[in-house]
């Protein structure tokens, strides 16, 4: 792609940045990536491009910044319509947006609360997290992907969360595979996609990051 200047402000372990990278890969778009040091000091460019939230990901397209990962993925899909990430019909799109919204509101928080909870609170957090997973599993139904037969918007929004599940599983002492086998199969299926496989970090490295983060926050 010539004349398309795409720069992603990134953080290696962020599932939100991952969504954007997967979407760009699905569309076959090349881009430059700049790793932000979120703990050491955010770059001038980040603070200027996202003054309101000062968060990654930020996608700069020909210098114009876009913020909020699901919104960025939507932009990528509308700007480069092929292959489409959303269904063609308005109703299909509304269902995709509904589930993306649910995932945004519930999934990451529920997963992180498991490893953020001290002592006995873990059991409650684990129960809440599994409940959210079961809702998603029911939404998936017998489909290969949330997009139906094809990998799409909701899959992109959800799959990066999955590489954080390992940390929740270790702290909660359970496996997603046992609790939600169909969802677990979807995770494996999605991780085999090239666009996903080439950007996912090692779950062990994510787990190490979580340990470090917990220490920083003083969680026992």
């Amino acid at each position: 792609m010539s004349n398309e200047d795409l720069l992603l402000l990134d953080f290696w372990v962020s599932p939100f940045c991952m969504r954007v990278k997967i979407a760009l890969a699905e569309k076959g778009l090349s881009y430059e990536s700049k790793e932000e040091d979120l703990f050491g000091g955010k770059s001038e460019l980040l603070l200027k491009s996202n003054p309101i939230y000062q968060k990654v990901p930020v996608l700069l397209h020909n210098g114009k910044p876009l913020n909020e990962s699901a919104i960025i993925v939507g932009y990528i899909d509308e700007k480069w319509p092929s292959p489409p990430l959303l269904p063609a019909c308005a109703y299909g799109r509304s269902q995709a947006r509904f589930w993306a919204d649910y995932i945004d509101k519930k999934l990451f928080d529920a997963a992180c609360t498991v490893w953020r909870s001290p002592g006995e609170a873990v059991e409650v957090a684990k129960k809440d997290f599994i409940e959210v997973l079961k809702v998603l599993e029911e939404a998936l139904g017998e489909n290969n992907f949330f997009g139906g037969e094809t990998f799409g918007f909701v899959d992109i929004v959800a799959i990066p969360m999955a590489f954080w599940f390992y940390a929740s599983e270790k702290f909660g002492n359970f496996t997603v595979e046992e609790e939600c086998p169909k969802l677990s199969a979807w995770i494996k299926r999605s991780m085999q996609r090239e666009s996903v496989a080439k950007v996912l970090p090692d779950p062990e490295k994510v787990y190490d990051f979580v340990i470090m983060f917990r220490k920083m926050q003083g969680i026992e």
Partner: protein
Amino acid sequence: MATKKNLMANTEHVKLLGFWASPFSLRVEWALKLKGVDYEYIEEDIFNKSSQLLELNPVHKLVPVFVHGEKVIAESFVILEYIDETWKQCPLMPQDPHERAMTRFWTKFAEEKILFGAWKSMCSLGEEKEKAAKLTVDAVEKIEEELKGKRFFGGESIGYLDIAVGWMSYWLPIWEEVGSMKILDPLQFPALTSWMKNFLEHPVIKENLPPRDKMIIYFQKRSQELSSRPRG
């Protein structure tokens, strides 16, 4: 211009489950009325939810729920985009992908930082109330900047973002009164103050606002229920 798809959309029954005082519910009604779409309205008692509501929205169990023929959609912003894509007259979202992304960004921002901030301020007491109010004012400053020079967020006519933040023109002054907090200072926010007047004077909007005195009583009761806590 009635395309075949538009005509087909016009034959399927449209139903909205809502609550008279809900800003989430009203924004959907505004979109339908602006587009001239006929719909059946069902008032839900959100404190005693009907089996129909629980069946149609088992995930969140909330209003509004929108039904078009056999299709069921929940979450007000998801409903708004569906309505805009299905009934093409009076388009609400801009066409350009960058502008659409910005519209969605400001919509999310206003909902998270202004609506929930103001609600929290209204329903809390003392220092917590003040803190929430200050954060809300900070957020309103950003929206004011976004508006400057324009009659509506959508430009010369009402657009998606006007509908998304339209609640500010009517609910926010009521919440300020009920919660005894000041957020919308006209001196600090001249553009928004002017926008509020334009929005409320729009012929469709002004015919579709819940009665003010009922709203005051309702939100007084709600905020009392939510802010009364045993003191430690």
